[in-house]
C-alpha cells in the first residue's frame, strides 16, 4: 500500500506526552508472556506509538501514513494481549487492527468502511494470463509485498487470497519466463484479470521455483519446468523434446530400453505417472525410447513431482509428470515449423472467435517418404512386395471456450503412433549393393525365405475439462477423459521353404475416468483442495502364434487375457500458512482398486520454511501403485516392444513406497539458484524378475496368461537414498546449468532367499551434468558434458563345469554369486551446440547444430562373458554410438 503524503500541518498546539513502553522479552523469538505489554501514553503521536509497539513486540502491522498522520492517542494498558493493546492504542481513532495471522495485523478505516457499501472483508482473486495469447498461467505467484502474503494460481490460472480487509494492496505477480508485474489489487466481486508480459530476455530465470520473496507459494516436491527453457537444453536426437530435457535434472535418468521413459532416484520406469491434461498416458516413447511423445511447443506447463506428491496425485511410487496442453492464443494466429534429422513438425495456435481459441500441433517422421514403404520386386521367377515402413507421428489439438469470466471449457485431443513394418529377404546377402541409393527396390530381390516384422503402437487421448469459479472462494474443476494404448506385434519368418513362424500379438489398454477437484480458499491461512476420481480400466491381450517346424510338426500358442477394474480415489489436502514464512501442506489420499486388497490410505505432508535468502523444505509420505509393468521374458514372438500392465489383485498386492526428503535452495544475486535435496525411500511389493539374467531367446514362451507372466516375477523390496545438487546460473548473455546427484538404489527379492540388498538395475552412485551457453548477437554457442557411473552388471567370480548325462562333454559355467555385483565403466559424453537466429520476411528462423560425443569415446553399454574362453578378460564389449551431429531448423511466424 503506497503511503500518501499530505502536507504536514504544523500545529502550534502544545502538547505533553509521555510514553512509557516497558517491554520484557523473555526469549529472543518473541514469545510474549503475561504482563509483557505495558503502555502508558497520553496524547502521543499515533505513528510513534505504533512504530515503537511494532518494534518492541515484533509484530507485523501494515498501515498507511494517511491513517496515522497528525493523530494522537491516549492509552493505558498492561497485559499480554497484542490485539487488546492495539485496540487500546487505536481507541477513538476510527481505526481497527485486523489480524491476518499470528502476529500480523493491518489497520482498517472504520469510518470509511461503514460509510460505503463495501464489505468489511473479502477476497483478492483473479485469473493470471499471458498478455499476448491470454493463455492462463498455472503456477504463477501473487505476492502482497507489504503483508508478505502469497498465493499460487491453480491449473486454471485462478488465485484467491480470502479474508482480506477492504483496501488496496501492492502486489507483485511473477511467473517463470515472464516479466514481474507490480500492481495494486483490491477486493472485488469479479475476479481480476491480470496479464503478464513475456520476459524480454529469452533466457529465463531459474527453473526451480524458489522465489525467496514468496516462498510460501512453492509446493514441496514440485519442480515446475518452463517449457521454453527446457527445450533449449541439449538432447538426443537434437529435436525439441520435453522428456529428454528432464534428464538434466539430478537423479532423473533417461533409460535406454524400449520400455522407454525416465527413472527417478534409481527407481523403475513404471513408477512414474505421465499425465496429459489430467489423463494418463501409458507408452510415451517413440522408436525404442529415442524420442518422447511430448512435443515441447504443444505444452504450456509441465510439472514434475519427485518422490513427494500432493495428495491429488498418486498411483505411482517415484514421480508424476503433469503436462498441460496449451489453450491457444486469443490474440492472433501464430505458429512454428521445424525440421530435424528424424522428423518435421508444425505448431499453430490462434483465435476462432473472441471466446474460443485453438491449438494444433503435429510431428511426423519422413524417412518413409524418402525411402518408400512398399517395394515391388521381380527377378523373373518370383514377384513380391518388400516393405520398409518406418514412421512415427504425434498430434495434439485443443479447443478452449471461455464461456464467461467464471467458466471455461476445454477439449484436448492427443494421439501418437509408431509403425515399424518390414518385409525383407531373410538372407541379407540378397541385398544388392547398387550405385544409386534410391529407389530402395534396386537393393532388393524376391526370396522364398523372408522375414516380416510389423509392430505398431499408439496412444489416443481425449480430455474434456470444465472449470467454474463458483464463488470467490470455491473453484471447481471437472475432468472427464478417455485414453487408450494399443500395440500390435506381428512376426512372420520362413526359415526353410517348409517351415514358418507366424505370430500376432495384440495389447489394448483403455481408461475412462472422471475427476472432480475443488479448490476452497477457506481463509488467508488455509487453502483446501479436495477431489474424487473414478477410473475404469480395461486390459486386453491376445496371442495367436503358430510355429510350423516341418510339414508335419507344428506348435501353437493361443491365448487371451482380459481384465476390468475400477479405481476410486478421494483426497483432501490443506495448504496451511500459519506463519508468513511457513507453509505446511498436510494431505491424505484414500484409494481402492475394486477387487484388490481393500482401501489404501496414503498420508502426505510437505513443509516449507523461509530463512531468507534460504528456503528450506521437507516432505514425507506414502505412495501406492496398483499397476505392475511386466513382460514375458522368454519368447521373441510377443512383448517385444510393448510391456504389459497388470493391476493388483487379491493374489498380487499393490506396491507401496515410504519416502522422505529434506532440502533447501538459495537465490543469490537474482541470477544464481542453488538447490540441495536429500532423500530416502523404501519400497515394498514391486515386481522383480525371478531370473534377472533371463533373456528372450525362445520361440514359444509360457504364453500370455496372467499366471504365466506373473510366475516369472517375485515381490521385491527396494531402498534408495541420496543427495541432489542443482546450480542454475542466468546472467546476461550467459547461462549455465550444473546438476549432480549421489545416491544408491538397492533391491532384494526376499522370496528368493535374498537377505542382502543388491544394486538395482538403474543404480547410479554418481552423476554430473554441466551445460554452458552464451549468446553473441544472433549466435548461441554452448558446450555440455555428462559423466556418470556405468550401470550395474552381473560379473562372474569363478568357473566350473558340469556334465549332463545326455552330453558328450562337460559344459563350462561361470559362477555368479550375486546379481549386479559389478559395474560398467563410466559413461562420458561431451557435446557442442551452436545456433543462429535470423529474420526473413517476418519469420524468425533458427538453425541449431549439435554434435555429441566430440571426444570420440565409445561408451561401453554392455558386457557379455563367455565361459568357453579361459582368460580373465573373457568378455565381449558392446559399445554405444560414435560421434554424431544433429541438426534442426525452425521458423516461427
Amino acid at each position, binding site marked *: 500500500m503506497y503511503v500518501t503524503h499530505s502536507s504536514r500541518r504544523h500545529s502550534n498546539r502544545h502538547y505533553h506526552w509521555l510514553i512509557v513502553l516497558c517491554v520484557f522479552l523473555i526469549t529472543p523469538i518473541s514469545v510474549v508472556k503475561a504482563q509483557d505489554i505495558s503502555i502508558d501514553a497520553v496524547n502521543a503521536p499515533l505513528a510513534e506509538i505504533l512504530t515503537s509497539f511494532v518494534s518492541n513486540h515484533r509484530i507485523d502491522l501494515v498501515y498507511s501514513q494517511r491513517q496515522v498522520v497528525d493523530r494522537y492517542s491516549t492509552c493505558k494498558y498492561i497485559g499480554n494481549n497484542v490485539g487488546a493493546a492495539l485496540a487500546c492504542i487505536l481507541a477513538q481513532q476510527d481505526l481497527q487492527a485486523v489480524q491476518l495471522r499470528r502476529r500480523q495485523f493491518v489497520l482498517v478505516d472504520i469510518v470509511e468502511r461503514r460509510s460505503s457499501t463495501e464489505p468489511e472483508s473479502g477476497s483478492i482473486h483473479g485469473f493470471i494470463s499471458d498478455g499476448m495469447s491470454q493463455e492462463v498461467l498455472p503456477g504463477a505467484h501473487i505476492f502482497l509485498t507489504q503483508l508478505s502474503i502469497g498465493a499460487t494460481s491453480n491449473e486454471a490460472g485462478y488465485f484467491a487470497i480470502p479474508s482480506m480487509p477492504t483496501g488496496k494492496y501492492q502486489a507483485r505477480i511473477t511467473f517463470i519466463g515472464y516479466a514481474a508485474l507490480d500492481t495494486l489489487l483490491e477486493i472485488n466481486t469479479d475476479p481480476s484479470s491480470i496479464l503478464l508480459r513475456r520476459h524480454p530476455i529469452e533466457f529465463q530465470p531459474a527453473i526451480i521455483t524458489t522465489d525467496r520473496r514468496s516462498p510460501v507459494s512453492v509446493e514441496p516436491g514440485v519442480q515446475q519446468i518452463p517449457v521454453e527453457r527446457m527445450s533449449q537444453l541439449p538432447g538426443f536426437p537434437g529435436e525439441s523434446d520435453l522428456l529428454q530435457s528432464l534428464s538434466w535434472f539430478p537423479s532423473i535418468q533417461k533409460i535406454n530400453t524400449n520400455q522407454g521413459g525416465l527413472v527417478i532416484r534409481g527407481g523403475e520406469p513404471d513408477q512414474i505417472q505421465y499425465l496429459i491434461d489430467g489423463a494418463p498416458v501409458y507408452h510415451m516413447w517413440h522408436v525404442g525410447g529415442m524420442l518422447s511423445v511430448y512435443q515441447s511447443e504443444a505444452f504450456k506447463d509441465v510439472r514434475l513431482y519427485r518422490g513427494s506428491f500432493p495428495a491429488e496425485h498418486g498411483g505411482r511410487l517415484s514421480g508424476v509428470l503433469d503436462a498441460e496442453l496449451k489453450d491457444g492464443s486469443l490474440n492472433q494466429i501464430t505458429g512454428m515449423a521445424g525440421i530435424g534429422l528424424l522428423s518435421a513438425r508444425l505448431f499453430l495456435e490462434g483465435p476462432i472467435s473472441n471466446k474460443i481459441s485453438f491449438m494444433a500441433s503435429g510431428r511426423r517422421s519422413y524417412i518413409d517418404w524418402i525411402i518408400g514403404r512398399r517395394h515391388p520386386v521381380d527377378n523373373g521367377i518370383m514377384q513380391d512386395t518388400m516393405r520398409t515402413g518406418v514412421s512415427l507421428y504425434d498430434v495434439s489439438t485443443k479447443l478452449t471456450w471461455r464461456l464467461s469470466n467464471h467458466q471455461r471449457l476445454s477439449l484436448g485431443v492427443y494421439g501418437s503412433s509408431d509403425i515399424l513394418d518390414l518385409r525383407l529377404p531373410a538372407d541379407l546377402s540378397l541385398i544388392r549393393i547398387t550405385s544409386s541409393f534410391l529407389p530402395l527396390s534396386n537393393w532388393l530381390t524376391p526370396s522364398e525365405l523372408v522375414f516380416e516384422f510389423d509392430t505398431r503402437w499408439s496412444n489416443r487421448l481425449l480430455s474434456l475439462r470444465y472449470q467454474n469459479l463458483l464463488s470467490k472462494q470455491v473453484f471447481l474443476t471437472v475432468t472427464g477423459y478417455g485414453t487408450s494404448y494399443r500395440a500390435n506385434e506381428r512376426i512372420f519368418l520362413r526359415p526353410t521353404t517348409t517351415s514358418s513362424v507366424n505370430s500376432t500379438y495384440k495389447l489394448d489398454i483403455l481408461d475412462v475416468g472422471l475427476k472432480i477437484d475443488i479448490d476452497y480458499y477457506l481463509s488467508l491461512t488455509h487453502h483446501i483442495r479436495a477431489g474424487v476420481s473414478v477410473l475404469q480400466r480395461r486390459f486386453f491381450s491376445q496371442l495367436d502364434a503358430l510355429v510350423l517346424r*516341418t510339414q508335419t510338426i507344428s506348435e501353437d500358442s493361443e491365448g487371451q487375457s482380459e481384465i476390468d477394474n475400477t479405481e476410486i480415489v478421494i483426497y483432501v489436502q490443506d495448504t496451511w500458512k500459519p506463519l508468513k514464512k511457513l507453509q505446511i501442506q498436510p494431505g491424505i489420499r484414500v484409494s481402492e482398486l475394486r477387487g484388490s486388497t481393500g482401501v489404501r490410505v496414503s498420508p502426505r505432508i510437505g513443509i516449507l520454511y523461509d530463512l531468507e535468502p534460504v528456503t528450506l523444505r521437507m516432505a514425507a509420505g506414502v505412495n501406492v501403485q496398483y499397476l505392475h509393468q511386466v513382460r514375458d521374458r522368454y519368447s521373441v514372438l510377443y512383448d517385444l516392444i510393448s510391456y504389459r500392465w497388470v493391476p493388483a489383485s487379491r493374489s498380487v498386492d499393490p506396491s507401496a513406497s515410504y519416502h522422505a526428503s529434506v532440502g533447501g535452495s538459495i537465490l543469490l544475486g537474482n541470477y544464481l539458484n542453488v538447490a540441495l535435496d536429500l532423500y530416502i525411500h523404501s519400497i515394498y511389493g514391486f515386481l522383480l524378475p525371478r531370473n534377472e539374467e533371463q533373456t*528372450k531367446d525362445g520361440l514359444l514362451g509360457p504364453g500370455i496368461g496372467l499366471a504365466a507372466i506373473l510366475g516369472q516375477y517375485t515381490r521385491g523390496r527396494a531402498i534408495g537414498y541420496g543427495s541432489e545438487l542443482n546450480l542454475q546460473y542466468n546472467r546476461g548473455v550467459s547461462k549455465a546449468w550444473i546438476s549432480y546427484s549421489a545416491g544408491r538404489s538397492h533391491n532384494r527379492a526376499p522370496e528368493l532367499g535374498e537377505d542382502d540388498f543388491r544394486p538395482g538395475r538403474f543404480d547410479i552412485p554418481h552423476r554430473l551434468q554441466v551445460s554452458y551457453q552464451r549468446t553473441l548477437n544472433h549466435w548461441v554457442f554452448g558446450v555440455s558434458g555428462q559423466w556418470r557411473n556405468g550401470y550395474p552388471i552381473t*560379473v562372474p567370480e569363478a568357473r566350473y563345469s558340469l556334465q549332463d548325462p545326455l552330453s558328450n562333454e562337460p559344459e563350462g559355467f561361470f559362477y555368479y554369486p550375486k546379481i549386479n555385483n559389478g559395474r560398467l565403466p563410466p559413461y562420458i559424453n561431451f557435446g557442442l551446440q551452436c545456433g543462429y537466429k535470423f529474420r526473413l520476411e517476418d519469420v524468425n528462423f533458427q538453425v541449431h547444430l549439435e554434435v555429441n560425443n566430440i571426444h570420440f569415446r565409445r561408451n561401453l553399454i554392455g558386457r557379455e562373458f563367455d565361459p568357453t574362453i579361459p582368460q580373465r578378460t573373457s568378455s565381449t564389449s558392446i559399445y554405444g554410438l560414435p560421434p554424431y551431429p544433429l541438426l534442426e531448423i525452425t521458423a516461427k511466424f
Partner: protein
Amino acid sequence: MCGCDAFQPESPSLPVVEAFVMSGQSMPEITLKRTGSIAERYQSDESTALRDAQLQLTMSDRVIPYSVKSPGKYVPVESVIAVPGADLELELQWNNQIILANDQIPGPISLDSVEISISDEPLESLVLESVFIDPTLLDSLGIQALGTGARKELVYIVEAKLYWAEQSQTNNPDDWWIRTQLRPNLDQSRRLFNYFFSPETLQLEDNFPINGKGKRYWSGAYAVSIETKTDPFPGHRLRISLVRSSQTYADFVSGSSNPREREPPTNIRGGRGIFAALAVDTLLINVYQ
C-alpha cells in the same frame, strides 16, 4: 555411496557336486570338485578335485555311505538300487561345512517305439547366427539387437516321433518332467536347427499328447546340411534320449541352455552343481535314406 566401476572380483573356492542317480540302477559314482579361477581354463581333474570330503546318501531312511575312489570321485561302499519314488538326500561334509541336497527318484521310463522320416529332397534353409533380442541395445542402434549373419543353406529335414508309456506310479504326472533329445552324430552347427526344428524339448509329462493306444508321444526334427542339391542324404548315427525327472533336473536343463548369459540354478545348498535323480532310456540308430 561410492561406486566402483568395472571390476572382476574373485570368489573363494566353492564345492561343486555332480551327481545323477539313475532310477532302477545302482547308486552312481559322484564327482566332487571345486570352482576355479575365472582367469584360467577349468580342468575337471585332480587340480580341481575336492579331497577329504565325507559323503553319504540317504534313500528314504537308508543311509548309503560313500568312499573315495580317486581324487574327486566317490563311490558307494555297497551296491544299492535306486528305488523309484524314494526320497534322496545327499550330505557332504567338507572344510567344516555341511552341504546338502535333495531329490526324488522318478519311475523308470522306456521308449516304446520310434518313427523316422526324411524329407524327399533338400530344402532351402535360413541359417542365423543368432535371433537373440536384447531390448537394452535398441537405443544404441546395435544391430545385434535383432540378430545377424543370416545366410542360406540346403538341408534335409529328419523327423523323429517317440512313444513311451506314462509313469505307472501314483505320483501326479504334473510333478514329473520329460526331456527328449535327438542328437545326430554330425559335424555341423546346430544353432539354427535347434531353434526352429526343435530336436529336443523339456515339458511337464502331462503336457505331451496321448495316442489311441495310451502312449504319450513327441515329434522332433533336425536338419542335415549338404553342399548342392544333387548331394545324397548323408547317413549318420542318431542317439535318441528320453528322460523323466523331477523339477530339479528340469531347472538345471533349462538354466544350462545359455551359459554365456547365466549359470544353471542349483539345488546344492552351500555349493554349486546338481544332484538329481533321473530315469533315462537311450536308443542309438543309423539314419539313412
